[in-house]
């Protein structure tokens, strides 16, 4: 069984890394939208092996989680502050067309200009 030992050692170390982050992180209850990328996502995912919610009921969703769910159906504000004057005028004009916002089942619930839709606001 000697080939198992290194792997087992690695596993234990991985779990300890997660626990250390849990003990020293002060942001474990912040909104998912605000967390910086270096904070362990495993702590937020209830199904993650590092999650403090692993053995709790599914109803233990935090209030900020529920807020994120309710945001999903609201329409984001226009990104009017993005200046398109450096781009081709015809292409800028096309960015004012209004796309149909849909949920993951392709059901429409609103509309938003293409500029807002095409803006890569990941970070």
């Amino acid at each position: 069984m000697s080939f198992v030992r290194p792997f087992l050692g690695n596993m234990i170390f991985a779990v300890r890394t997660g626990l250390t982050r849990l003990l020293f992180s002060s942001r474990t209850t912040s909104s998912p939208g605000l967390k910086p990328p270096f904070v362990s996502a495993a702590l937020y995912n209830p199904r993650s092996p590092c999650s403090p919610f692993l053995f709790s009921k599914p109803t233990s969703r935090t209030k900020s989680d529920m807020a994120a769910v309710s945001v999903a159906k609201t329409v984001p504000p226009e990104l009017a502050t993005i200046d398109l004057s450096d781009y081709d005028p015809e292409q800028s004009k096309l960015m004012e067309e209004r796309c149909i916002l849909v949920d993951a089942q392709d059901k429409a619930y609103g509309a938003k200009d293409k500029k807002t839709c095409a803006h890569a606001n990941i970070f």
Partner: protein
Amino acid sequence: MAPRTRRLVRTLIFFDFWLYADSLAGHLMVNINQGLLHRAFSAFIFRPSDAKLLLQQRASEKITFPDMWTNTCCSHPLDDFPIEKVEEEQLGVRVAASRKLEHELGIPKSQTPIGEFQYLTKIHYLAPSDGIWGEHEGMLETEICHASRSDIPI
């Protein structure tokens, strides 16, 4: 470094990267869920005589994906036109495809009647463009193929 220490360091780096990647994916999903997923279509025109697919190169002036080669025509059905919001039989998407094929490629609408589009499938599409622009937010894209017995004169 002792082998054991080296192994621990390697594991730490790997695990940290794994958490980082997981966190990035979480960010992506949060933004998709914030309502920027929108309906799009992707149209393919094949020439029946030799079964070749018509490609297009996007204009250099395009804000998203300039100069890139792509399939025949991709765009969005618009909220601005009531008929393009009709979901039954993908009518809205078919009308939008016919409109954009004329606008982008100069193929008259009369040569792409909406009944000749064959619905293929729907895909959830995500892709980064350049800088702040992209389709990072996600599109629910309806794939349609123009199925005609005769060639479209181009």
